[in-house]
C-alpha cells in the first residue's frame, strides 16, 4: 500500500478548504455569472450557423495543429527508427524492390495491351470516358477516437489541393472520404463510421447497395436490390454512383448474411495504416476525352 502513501499523509497534500474567500469569487465560480454568460454566449454562437461554422473550422485547424505538434517528436523518432532499420537491411530491401519492379514491369506490359484494347472497344461501342484520377499521398497524423467517431487526421489540406468529399484509398481498397479540410490538415471519415454511406455493388451477383458504417469493423449493406442473390465471400466494390468514389474500387468481402443483415469485412488494416492516397479528379483529361469523343460523333 506504499503506492497510496501520498494520499494518506495529511502533512504533504493540502486540499484547499475554502478556495473562494471573497463573495465575488464565490459568485463567479458558483455558476452565478460565469455559467450563465458562457451558456448564453455559447448558445447564441451555436445557433447562429455562419459564425458557428467559421468557429468550428478554425477550432478544427487549431486543435489538429496542436495535436500534430504534440505527436511530432514521437513520429520523428518512429521515422528515425524505421530509417535505421531500413538502412541496416538495405541489401535485402534492394533485392525485394528489384523483384517487385520486375513483377510490376511485366504487369505493365499486360496492362498496356489491355488499355489499348479497352480504348478500341470504348470507341466502337461509343462509351463515354470515365473521369480520370490523380492522387496525393498523405501521412496519417493521428486517429483520435473515443468510441464514437472513426476518423483519421492526415497531413494534407487546402495547400495540397485536397478538397471536401474526395475519396481516400490505400492499395488494399477504400478507406473513406475527406470530411473536413484545413490549410495543411484534413479529417478522413472512415467507411466504418456510423455516418459513412458509400454506394457499392457486389462483383458476382451485381447487386447494388449502400455500405453503411455501424461503428464496428464490419460495416453492413443496406438498400440491397435482392438479398437472396448475395453470397458469402463475394467481393464488394464501389459502384461509382454519387460521384465521390470511382467505380470498381475494392471495399471488402461479404462476411455474413444473417436474417437479412449483410456484414462486410473490410480489406483495410486500419490499425496499421501510416499513409493514404487522396484521389483527385483530373477534370482536364476528362474534358479532353469527352471533347474528342464528341468531335468524333
Amino acid at each position, binding site marked *: 500500500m506504499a503506492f497510496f502513501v501520498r*494520499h*494518506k499523509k495529511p502533512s504533504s497534500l493540502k486540499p484547499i478548504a475554502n*478556495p473562494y474567500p471573497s463573495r465575488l469569487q464565490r459568485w463567479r465560480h458558483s455558476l452565478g455569472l460565469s455559467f450563465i454568460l458562457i451558456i448564453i454566449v455559447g448558445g447564441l454562437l451555436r445557433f447562429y450557423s455562419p459564425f458557428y461554422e467559421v468557429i468550428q473550422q478554425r477550432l478544427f485547424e487549431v486543435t489538429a495543429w496542436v495535436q500534430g505538434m504534440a505527436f511530432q517528436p514521437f513520429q520523428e523518432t518512429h521515422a528515425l527508427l524505421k530509417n535505421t532499420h531500413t538502412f541496416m537491411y538495405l541489401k535485402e530491401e534492394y533485392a525485394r524492390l528489384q523483384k517487385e519492379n520486375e513483377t510490376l514491369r511485366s504487369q505493365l506490359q499486360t496492362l498496356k495491351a489491355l488499355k489499348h484494347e479497352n480504348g478500341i472497344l470504348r470507341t466502337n461501342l461509343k462509351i463515354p470516358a470515365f473521369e480520370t484520377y490523380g492522387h496525393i499521398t498523405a501521412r496519417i497524423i493521428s486517429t483520435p477516437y473515443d468510441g464514437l467517431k472513426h476518423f483519421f487526421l492526415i497531413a494534407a489540406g487546402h495547400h495540397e489541393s485536397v478538397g471536401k468529399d474526395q475519396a481516400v484509398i490505400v492499395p488494399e481498397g477504400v478507406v473513406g472520404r475527406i470530411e473536413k479540410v484545413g490549410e495543411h490538415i484534413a479529417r478522413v471519415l472512415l467507411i466504418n463510421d456510423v455516418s459513412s454511406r458509400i454506394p457499392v455493388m457486389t462483383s458476382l451477383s451485381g447487386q447494388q447497395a449502400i455500405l453503411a458504417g455501424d461503428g464496428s469493423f464490419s460495416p453492413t449493406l443496406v438498400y440491397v436490390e435482392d438479398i437472396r442473390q448475395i453470397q458469402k465471400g463475394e467481393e464488394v466494390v464501389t459502384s461509382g454512383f454519387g460521384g465521390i468514389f470511382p467505380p470498381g474500387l475494392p471495399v471488402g468481402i461479404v462476411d455474413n448474411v444473417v436474417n437479412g443483415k449483410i456484414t462486410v469485412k473490410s480489406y483495410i488494416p486500419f490499425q496499421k495504416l501510416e499513409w493514404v492516397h487522396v484521389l483527385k479528379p483530373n477534370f482536364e483529361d476528362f474534358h479532353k476525352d469527352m471533347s474528342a469523343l464528341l468531335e468524333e460523333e
Partner: protein
Amino acid sequence: MRFLFGCLRSFPFLSVLYVIIVGCSLNIGGHPLLPAFFLIPVFYWLVYRPDWLPLWSLCCIGIFYDSLLGNELGVSSLLLMLSAYFGQYLRPLLNPYHFPLIWGGFILYSLGYIILYGCLVSGGLSLLVSWMYGIVLYPLMAWGLSYLHLWLQANV
C-alpha cells in the same frame, strides 16, 4: 512574478489538455481510453484545487475535446461545467485523505458523466469499457498528479 505564478497555476489546465492529446490515440483491445481517461485529472483538480481549474478552463477543455473528437461543440463543455457546479456541493462530503472514498467518488462521477455523454452523443459499449479503464487507471494517474500538486503547492 505574478505572470510566473499565473503560468504555474495553468498547469492543471495544461495537464488535462495533455491527457486528452495523448489519450485520444490510445486504445486497449480496440476500446478507447477516452473519455474516462481525461476525467481523472478533471476530478482530481476539482476535488483538491477547484480554484486552479476554473469554469472558463473547463469550458475551453470541453471545446478542445469536442473539436478534436469531431463532436458537436459545447457538449463536453456543458458536462464539465456541470461537474464543477455539482462538485462544489459534493466536495465537502469527500475526505481528501481517505483514498478509497475519493476513488469511489470518481467511480460515481465518471459513471454519471459517461451516461450523460452517451445519451447526448449516442455512445455505446466503448464508453462503458472506457469507464472501466478509467477506474483502473485512476490510482496510477492520481499518484502522478499528486506529485504535480505538491510541486505547485510549494511554488505557487
